[in-house]
């Protein structure tokens, strides 16, 4: 991990919503090339806020953000960020708004400047890669939870991001869909931050686990080692399946 180029660097980030206390408090974190980082935290701990700050949907009051080594400050910078980093929302319903799957997947490439023909082509390729061939003309609104999640992943992957941010990817998924997504993410070769409160899931999909507490990020350990210490982990104590 050390010596590899950092993809996302956050230094001393402060963020608070108007009324309340600081959600992100002097937060420092880096994601390196090839790294898959799991992020655990309670509801309200700032996980989603962090992802939105990276994407420029929220502005930190203090601190520095760097993507691929470049400092990101202005709106123009963040527009570049969105070409480089993909965010998969927690609820696929918030991500999908085109009538058909193909149109939703093609939306990103169109924004990146591809012609309609090219956009369709890369959209179809991405759907193929995710084993979603045949889904092009399906109505996004009518898909099942698992299918929507896959399509929402496709809408982001089609833009060929250098890094992926996933917000609770298992939300609303049944067992079968979870397995499918876990296997997919495990095989994807993109630097990622995977926010989840499911330890099992992170054990399969991430290499290093971090936790967010008190507005800061701490390193908890390598996924493999930590899995064995599940019950003793301070941040998580939900019952888990015995594999």
């Amino acid at each position, binding site marked *: 991990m050390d010596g590899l180029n950092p993809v996302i660097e956050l230094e001393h980030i402060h963020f608070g919503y108007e009324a309340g206390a600081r959600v992100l408090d002097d937060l420092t974190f880096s994601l390196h090339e090839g790294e898959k980082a799991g992020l655990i935290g309670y509801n309200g701990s700032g996980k989603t806020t962090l992802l939105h700050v990276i994407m420029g949907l929220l502005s930190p009051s203090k601190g520095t953000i760097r993507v691929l080594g470049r400092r990101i400050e202005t709106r123009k910078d963040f527009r570049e960020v969105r070409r480089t980093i993909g965010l998969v929302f927690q609820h696929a319903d918030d991500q999908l708004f085109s*009538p058909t799957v193909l149109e939703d997947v093609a939306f990103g490439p169109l924004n990146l400047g591809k012609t309609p023909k090219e956009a369709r082509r890369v959209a179809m390729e991405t759907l193929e890669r995710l084993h979603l061939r045949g889904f092009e003309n399906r109505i*996004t*609104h009518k898909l099942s939870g698992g299918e929507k999640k896959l399509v929402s992943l496709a809408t982001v992957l089609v833009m060929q991001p250098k890094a992926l941010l996933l917000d609770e990817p298992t939300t609303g998924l049944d067992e079968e869909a979870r397995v499918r997504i876990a296997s997919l993410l495990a095989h994807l070769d993109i630097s990622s931050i995977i926010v989840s409160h499911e330890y099992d899931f992170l054990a399969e999909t991430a290499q290093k686990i971090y936790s967010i507490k008190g507005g800061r990020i701490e390193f908890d350990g390598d996924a493999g080692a930590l899995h064995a210490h599940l019950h003793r982990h301070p941040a998580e104590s939900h019952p888990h399946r015995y594999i």
Partner: protein
Amino acid sequence: MHISEGILSGPVLVSGIALAAAGTAIGLRKLDVDRIPRAAILSAAFFAASLVHVPIGASSVHLILNGIVGLILGWGAFPVILVALALQAVLFQFGGITTLGVNTVIMAFPAVLSYYVFGPLVRRRPEIALPAAFACGAASVFLGAILVGLALTLTEKNFLKVSAIVAAAHIPVMIIEGIITAFCVAFLKKVQPEILPGNEIDRA
């Protein structure tokens, strides 16, 4: 397409109130109590949608969307638009009290007309439905602008030129609303065609 306070004459204001009351009465009669949650949430959706501003050249415009309100609600457009305008007045202090009736008629009358004229066309195949939807969006705005001009000119003959300017200013908006209505109808046809008018027109 709001006319603000202090411009229109008494008779025009009163006519507006009378016509809006009549339209709303009809709309309410066709709206069963169990359909009110749906009308209310759609009213909220239109309200939210009308806050969207869309770029046009160097500036931007707010969408009016009375064409599609009409398609989805029919006569229900009258109470829904009345309520949306009232809420706009209370929450943004934009729009007027004396003009509430007139402004409702300006937006709702074209909406209801759209339901009857374009409603039957919108359920047919895309080659017919989409141009119809474009026409619906554009015509609703156009008719609204005409009604604005009518209200102004009936108040004061010398407002005729002002009316013409207001109408002309709406031409770019007409085109954009036509385009957006067409795509929106295309979307609804694929995703939830039941929301668009179909056979209900015969029952009405």
